[in-house]
């Protein structure tokens, strides 16, 4: 607790290029960038595969294999290959991290929709695309949101390692603290990242409340 008071009580930590606000913004920048790109890739792909059923096995196997890729190793390799100091290479391992949970959950969500419901939608005269967007997507939404939430949390917490290759973000406090044995900074940084991850978690719970149709929620 002394460490926390030392870290958060120090006015030097609240301003300047290595202050908490700047580091927090940097952290959000990497995380949001990677998350958005991953969502733009994985949600449409998951919807398509779930709807058509084509290529499902391949995608699920590939997504599971991608889970095994060590983010730190990928980060170090990509940054060495692309050159140190730019933000873009850091996004690649984070995107690789975020795609599998979104893709698999979106696919499972669409595929898991009751076949009767799908048939009813066709029976009411909806076309393929209308069935996907007006029936399957709303019903699959809880699972899609779960995938997005898992991905967002993993991205926010893993963006910490970006500091290892010399970039900013909240990981700076942890990595620099470890290097200089300033444990107040390590614990302070750790608390900040954990709080951010919890905030993301909470944000998704609220989004779930707002976005999921009450009818779908009742069935759950």
């Amino acid at each position, binding site marked *: 607790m002394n460490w926390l008071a030392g870290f958060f009580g120090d006015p030097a930590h609240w301003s300047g290029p290595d202050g908490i606000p700047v580091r927090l913004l940097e952290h959000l920048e990497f995380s949001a960038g990677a998350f958005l790109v991953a969502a733009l890739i994985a949600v449409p792909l998951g919807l398509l595969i779930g709807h058509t059923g084509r290529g499902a096995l391949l995608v699920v196997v590939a997504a599971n294999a991608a889970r095994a890729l060590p*983010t730190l190793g990928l980060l*170090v390799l990509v940054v060495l290959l692309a050159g140190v100091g730019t933000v873009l290479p850091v996004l690649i391992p984070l995107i690789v991290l975020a795609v599998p949970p979104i893709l698999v959950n979106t696919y499972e969500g669409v595929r898991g929709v009751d076949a009767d419901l799908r048939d009813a939608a066709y029976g009411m005269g909806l076309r393929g695309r209308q069935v996907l967007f007006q029936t399957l997507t709303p019903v699959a939404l809880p699972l899609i949101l779960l995938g997005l939430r898992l991905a967002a949390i993993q991205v926010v917490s893993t963006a910490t390692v970006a500091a290892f290759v010399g970039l900013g973000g909240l990981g700076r406090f942890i990595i620099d603290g470890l290097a200089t044995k300033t444990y107040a900074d390590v614990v302070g940084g750790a608390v900040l990242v954990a709080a951010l991850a919890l905030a993301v978690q909470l944000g998704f719970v609220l989004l779930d409340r707002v976005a999921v149709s009450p009818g779908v929620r009742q069935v759950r």
Partner: protein
Amino acid sequence: MTDEPLVRWDWIARNWANGGPTAISALLENHVVMAFLPVLFGLVVALPLGLACVRWRWLYQPTAALMNVTYSLPSLVLFSIFLSITGLTRSTVVIPLTFFALAVLIPAVVDGLASVPDAVRQSAVAMGFRPARRLLRVELPVAVPVVLAGLRVATVSSISLVSVGALIGQGGLGNLFIDGWQRQFYTPITVGIVLIVLLAVLADGLLVLAQRLLTPWSRARRTA
């Protein structure tokens, strides 16, 4: 840097088993231990806890919430917190990873037991199974596919997460990433990534095999 190949085989040959603590084989061994112990401990703890959550439903909400919170903590954060308690030992990686494994395994055990059809449970009762034997001989075997699905996720992510421990000096194959980064040398990084993915694929395959052996009826139904 541009002419440097991704893999220099002679470096691998020289460093595979050079006898020191940084030999690739030594790191691999360390990695395996640090990745599997958390899953093992996690399973041993998750089974009784999951059972308790099924028996006493009110336990599940708070447990699930706690596990959600744990899951959202970055591994590096937990490692650095435990570094101040357990120091530079394997425990500093194994204990936090056990929490991550628990976060996946407890819901898997609960969902697995919930997936047992009521008719199956009632048939077992009608056949004279007492609760303890019913659990061991009927409910747990029927729950195996769901529990194993959780076990696969926990194992693969544990294998991949150990490497982050390299940032606090205990990362198994992850140490190769730090080494490669510091010397701007691709080969150790490539070796580390490939071995970790291979290890994960192998472990995943073994678990799939285990599921086939543990649930022979699921295959019988398919061929029938």
